[in-house]
């Protein structure tokens, strides 16, 4: 789960990371009040869950409250298109009005899981303000790393090593150690999957500060963070994905026209792949899970069909634990209830498959049956042509 910059900064501040003074605003009046409170000179920043806001015109400097309002009106309620939003962009509902600071230097600081080591890694770079992937590709020598031992946490010597390697002046080293350790405490406490400060700045006055904050959380750990769960912004998510998550269905929208319903994530990905190999385009990823009931199958159907681009549906189920007869009944009931107008191909294999096929055949619904995965994919691709 992702959160906004202003929410991330509020969390980081609680853990002792210095952040600029700022206030979130969702109306022009609030922008004006916040700017006045900051003494006039301020930065207005669009709050969307995507990077590249600055380049896209989503971050503006103002020298007085009136100018802040004028700049804010160019962003608030508008669609912001950055290289991460896709061409459709994201609508801006909130702005962060923040104290403007005198930047001396920009640094990158991030923490992320290193899967190969099963540990959290701190990543630093003197190239702040640019995407770390870009730095890693062009200047790998500018990427500095320290791996954190979970038994003891991030140690001061590791932070010092990074700070000295960044070439920071000696009076800044202590401040940087505090900054890094605070970020790790936040990362660990909140079950983050990513915590990124880019840029971390050194001000002309000799302070270190988080000028931006990107925090992302482990979905599997949200059960123990109700406060973080409350920060979820549904405006930032695909409505069909939100709907699916209510029924514990794992759904992801894609660009094609063949809807898929599969049990198991690996098989669901493989089903998308085989549709593509047969010359079709999958409209979605959908894992109904192992114990899919009749009701879940029906919900899955509704979500797939709510995508108006869908011209046909392929159901691919390998019934191990899930019985094919139960699935078939769920499909038949849902197809009747929703009076499905597009071609439907069902490929079932596994426990009680004969019984399942009989239920489909006896239903007198125009369901196309397939024995193998390849046959199922070929039939649905033909059917939508």
């Amino acid at each position, binding site marked *: 789960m992702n959160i906004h910059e202003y929410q991330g900064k509020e969390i980081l501040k609680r853990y002792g990371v210095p952040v600029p003074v700022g206030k979130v605003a969702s109306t022009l009046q609030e922008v004006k009040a916040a700017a006045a409170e900051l003494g006039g000179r301020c930065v207005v920043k669009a709050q969307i869950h995507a990077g590249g806001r600055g380049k896209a015109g989503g971050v503006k400097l103002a020298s007085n409250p009136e100018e802040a309002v004028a700049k804010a009106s160019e962003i608030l309620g508008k669609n912001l298109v950055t290289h991460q939003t896709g061409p459709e962009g994201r609508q801006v509902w909130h702005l962060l009005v923040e104290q403007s600071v005198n930047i001396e230097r920009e640094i990158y600081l991030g923490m992320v899981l290193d*899967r*190969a080591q099963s540990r959290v890694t701190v990543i630093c770079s003197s190239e702040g303000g640019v995407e770390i992937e870009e730095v890693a590709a062009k200047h790998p020598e500018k990427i500095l790393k320290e791996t954190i031992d979970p038994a003891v946490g991030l140690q001061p010597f590791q932070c010092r090593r990074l700070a000295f390697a960044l070439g920071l002046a000696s009076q800044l080293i202590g401040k940087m150690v505090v900054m890094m350790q605070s970020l790790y405490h936040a990362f660990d406490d909140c079950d983050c999957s990513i915590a990124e400060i880019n840029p971390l700045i050194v001000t002309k006055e000799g302070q270190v500060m988080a000028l931006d904050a990107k925090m992302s959380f482990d979905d599997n750990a949200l059960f123990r963070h109700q406060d973080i769960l409350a920060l979820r912004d549904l405006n930032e998510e695909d409505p069909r994905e939100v709907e699916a998550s209510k029924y514990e269905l794992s759904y*992801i929208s894609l660009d094609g026209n063949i809807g898929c319903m599969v049990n198991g994530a690996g098989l669901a990905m493989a089903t998308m792949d085989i549709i593509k190999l047969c010359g079709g385009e999958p409209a979605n990823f959908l894992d109904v899970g192992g114990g899919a009931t009749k009701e879940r199958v029906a919900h899955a159907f509704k979500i797939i069909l709510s995508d108006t681009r869908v011209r046909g549906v392929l159901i691919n189920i390998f019934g191990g634990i899930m019985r094919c007869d139960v699935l078939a009944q769920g499909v038949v009931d849902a197809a009747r209830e929703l009076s499905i107008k597009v071609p439907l191909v069902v490929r079932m294999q596994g426990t009680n498959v004969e019984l399942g096929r009989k239920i489909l055949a006896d239903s007198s619904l125009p369901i196309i049956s397939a024995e193998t995965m390849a046959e199922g994919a070929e039939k649905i691709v033909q059917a939508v042509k």
Partner: protein
Amino acid sequence: MSILVGKQTRVLTQGITGATGQFHTKACKEYGTLMVSGVTPGKGGTSFEGIPIFDTVARAVSETAANVSVIYVPPPFAADAIMEAADAGIALIICITEGVPVRDMIRVKRYLESRSSQLLGPNCPGVITPGECKIGIMPGHIHRPGTIGVVSRSGTLTYEAVDQLTRLGMGQSSCVGIGGDPVHGFEFVDVLDLFNRDSGTEAVVMIGEIGGSAEEEAANWIRSHMKKPVVGFIAGQTAPPGKRMGHAGAIISGGRGTAREKIEAMKSAGIRMASSPALIGKTMQEALGKL
């Protein structure tokens, strides 16, 4: 022959009184697995399907000599269950539970560094040696005893591959699901190494998916160590970047972990890649010169 588990394996179920634990313990017992005990704190002294239940893993081990544990406890308690099993000296811990927080698994892996236990999973289907021992949630009836080793990050896609092998007359020595989470126990390399040394395994099917770099690491290892033919498939060739495809670990982030990178690494290591998930069995036939 086989790897990890066989006829002599003595299995303990942690979370034996939950719905999932009961269902699969029963199914595994019916398959012929030696299910010797169960653990649910507070339910010690009772039994399920004739299997004695204990309050602690240590007690279950001392009373029933269990050497493998299978875990079905809910995600918030899974890390604790794994560590309890390790502390009790269980040799192989198989965690089926899906949804264990990454932070918990980071701590578990650190804990296991000082223990002799090995961990399979979490978020995995388990392991089966056809005809001898089934531990986990895979459907037993699609498997046949034979000489093909199967290792995979997926559940149902593994069943699909196994089904293809069985239909083409190729039985399996053992099938191992290493799981779909970013932090887990056994890696591809660990399982490949076991298959490499197992006299009963003639060739191996390796099924990977997007996210992380385990497949690339496995490809590197295979290039210099593997003496047996390997057939591979990578799921998620059409997956968009930045989206988690069901499995917590199946995500292309920062442009890394794509199917293309993995397929190229595996091909260059001499692995015969199935171009379609429907051709995994057929590709194995080709690799064995049976076509």
